[in-house]
C-alpha cells in the first residue's frame, strides 16, 4: 500500500449519497410512468412518489456536507463555478431538479388542495398554505387544466433531469481513470438503472406500509404493475452489471488479478453474497415467480414486500462495493487495506443511520402537510384526455 491509501478517504456517508440520490431519481421515474406513460394502475403512488423524491432530495447533500472538511466553503461552488468541474455543474443540476422540477411539479399537482386548505385550515397551518398559494386562489377548471398541461411538460423535462442527477454520480466514479474498479463508461448507466430499481422498490414498500398503517386495503392492481416494472428494470440493471463484470473478466487488464482477489476475499460477502445473491438474484427469482405463476393476492403482496426490501439491500450493497470496494486495494495492485466504520463520529454509523431515517421524517411532515393518498386526489384530466 502507498501511505495515502491505507486510510479510506470516502466513508459510509459517500456510500449513502448515491444511495439517496438513486432513491430520488427512481421515485421520480416511477411518478413519470403515471404522468408521461399513462400507466393508470400505479396512479395511487404518484403523489407519494413525488413527495418521497422531494424528502430524499432534501437530505441528499447532507452526507457530502458532513464529509467536507470545510462545509462553509460549499456555496463557493455556486458563486464561482468552474466549467470543467463535474461537481460544480452538479450543484446546478441539483438546484434545477429540486426547484424547477420537483417543487414546481408538486406545487402544480397540489395547487387545488393548497388553495382549499388555505381557506379551511386555521392558525399557523393556514398561514403556511396561504404562503404556498403565492397569493393566487384561482382554481377554475381552466387554470387546473393549464396546471395539468404544464405539469406534464415539467415531468417530461424531469426525466432527463433525473437521469442527469443520478447519471452524474456514476459519471464521477466512472471518470476516475486512476481507479480500475470505478473507471468504466458503463458506470453512469448502471447507476441510473440501479437508481430506478431502488426508487421503485422504495416507493412500492412505502405505499404498502402506509396503506397498511392507515388500515386500508392495498390496491393489488397497483402493486402488481409496480412489481412488473421493477422486474423489467431489475433485469436490465442486472444485465448491465453482468456485462460490466464479464467485460472486466474478458479484458483481464493489469488490475484484474488484484480485483479478482479482492472480490474473492474482502468483498466476497458484500459483493457476491449480499449484492448478487441476496440483493439481486433472490428478488429477481421472486418477482419472476409472481410474473409467471398465478399466486393468491396475499402471497404476491408478501413476495413483493420481500423482493422490494431485498432489492433495497442489494442496491445499498452495490453502492458500498463501488465506494468502499474501490478504495480497498492499492493502485500498485500489490496490497489491500480494510475499512472499519466508526460508531459515534462525524462519518460514523450513527450519523449514517440518522441520515437514512431523516428523509422519512421529512416525508412524514410533507405527508401531513400535503396528503398524497389517492382518496384525496382529484386530478385534473391529463393533457390530451
Amino acid at each position, binding site marked *: *500500500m*502507498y*501511505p495515502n491509501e491505507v486510510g479510506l478517504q470516502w466513508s459510509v456517508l459517500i456510500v449513502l449519497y448515491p444511495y439517496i440520490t438513486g432513491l430520488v431519481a427512481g421515485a421520480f421515474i416511477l411518478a413519470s410512468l403515471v404522468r408521461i406513460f399513462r400507466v393508470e394502475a400505479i396512479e395511487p403512488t404518484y403523489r407519494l412518489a413525488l413527495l418521497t423524491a422531494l424528502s430524499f432530495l432534501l437530505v441528499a447533500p447532507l452526507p457530502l456536507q458532513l464529509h467536507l472538511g*470545510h462545509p*462553509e*466553503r460549499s*456555496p463557493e461552488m*455556486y*458563486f*464561482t463555478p*468552474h466549467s470543467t468541474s463535474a461537481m460544480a455543474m452538479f450543484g446546478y443540476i441539483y438546484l434545477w431538479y429540486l*426547484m*424547477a422540477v420537483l417543487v*414546481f411539479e408538486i*406545487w402544480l399537482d397540489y*395547487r387545488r388542495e393548497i388553495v382549499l386548505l388555505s381557506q379551511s385550515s386555521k392558525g399557523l397551518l393556514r398561514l403556511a398554505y396561504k404562503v404556498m*398559494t*403565492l*397569493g*393566487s386562489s*384561482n382554481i*377554475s377548471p*381552466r*387554470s387546473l387544466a*393549464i*396546471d395539468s398541461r*404544464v405539469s406534464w411538460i415539467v415531468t417530461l423535462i424531469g426525466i432527463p433531469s433525473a437521469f442527469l442527477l443520478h447519471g452524474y454520480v456514476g459519471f464521477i466514479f466512472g471518470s476516475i481513470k486512476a481507479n480500475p474498479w470505478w473507471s468504466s463508461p458503463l458506470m453512469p448507466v448502471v447507476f441510473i438503472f440501479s437508481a430506478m430499481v431502488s426508487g421503485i422498490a422504495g416507493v412500492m414498500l412505502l405505499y404498502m406500509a402506509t396503506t397498511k398503517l392507515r388500515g386500508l386495503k392495498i390496491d393489488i392492481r397497483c402493486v402488481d404493475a409496480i412489481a412488473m416494472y421493477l422486474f423489467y428494470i431489475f433485469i436490465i440493471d442486472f444485465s448491465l452489471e453482468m456485462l460490466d463484470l464479464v467485460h472486466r473478466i474478458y479484458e483481464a487488464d493489469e488490475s484484474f488479478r488484484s480485483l479478482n482477489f479482492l472480490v474473492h476475499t474482502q468483498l466476497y460477502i458484500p459483493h457476491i453474497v449480499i449484492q448478487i445473491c441476496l440483493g439481486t438474484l433472490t428478488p429477481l427469482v421472486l418477482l419472476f415467480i409472481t410474473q409467471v405463476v398465478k399466486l393468491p393476492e396475499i402471497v404476491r403482496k408478501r413476495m413483493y414486500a420481500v423482493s422490494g426490501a431485498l432489492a433495497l439491500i442489494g442496491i445499498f450493497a452495490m453502492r458500498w462495493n463501488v465506494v468502499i470496494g474501490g478504495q480497498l486495494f492499492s493502485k500498485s495492485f500489490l*496490497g489491500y487495506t480494510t475499512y472499519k466504520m466508526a460508531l459515534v463520529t462525524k462519518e460514523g454509523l450513527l450519523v449514517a443511520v440518522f441520515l437514512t431515517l431523516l428523509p422519512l421524517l421529512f416525508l412524514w411532515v410533507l405527508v401531513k402537510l400535503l396528503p398524497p393518498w389517492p382518496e384525496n386526489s382529484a386530478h385534473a384530466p391529463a393533457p390530451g384526455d
Partner: protein
Amino acid sequence: MSVFKDAGHLFRFAGLFVLAFLIFLVVRHYVVPKSFGQYGHYRAAALGEIAAHPAKFAGHETCEGCHSDVADKKSKGKHAHVNCEACHGALFQPLPVTGQPKPNLYERFVALIVPPAPPDPLLLRHAEDPTSVKPVLPDTTVLCARCHTASTAKPKGFPQVVPADHSNGMPCDTCHQPHSPGMDAAAAPDATAKAAGGVK
C-alpha cells in the same frame, strides 16, 4: 386574455425564480472577491498576500553563529543536510504584517465559523533574543518516528524502524545522538538497544 388570467399563478412562481436569481446575483456581487478570475480561476490578490507572508525561519547560518559545536558534529553525521529548524521548529518571529486588504462580507462570515490561526508562540523569538527565549527541546520519541517509521513506500536504504518494537517507548536519544545519529562510540549505545536492532 383569460389564458393569462388563468395562468397568473404560473407567472407568480416564475417571479419567485427571477427574484431568487436576482438575490443570487446581488449576494454573488458582495461575496466574490474583486480580484477573482483576473489571472485564472482563483483570487489574484491571494498571490500578493501569500508573497507578503514573512519568513519565520531564521536559517541554519543564524543557528550556527552561536551553536558551532553542534554544527561541527552535525556536518560529520548522516543528518548533515537536515536543517536545524526542521527538527527544532521555526525560531524567528518577524514583525506583524500591516496593510492587509479588508476582508469582504463572505470572508468575515467564514471567519465567524473558522476562527483565524492563533498568534505564534513567544519561543519563536529565540533567534532575536537567544538569552531569554529558550526553545523547548523536541521529544525524540515523536520527532524521529516522523521520518524513520517503517513504510514500504520509503527507499530500502533509508533507515527505518517500527518504533514500538525498536525502542519499546524509550526516547530515541537514549541511544542515538540526534545531531549525528550513527551508533558510534561517541553516541555511547547500550548493548540492549543494539541487540533490539532495526534497519539502519
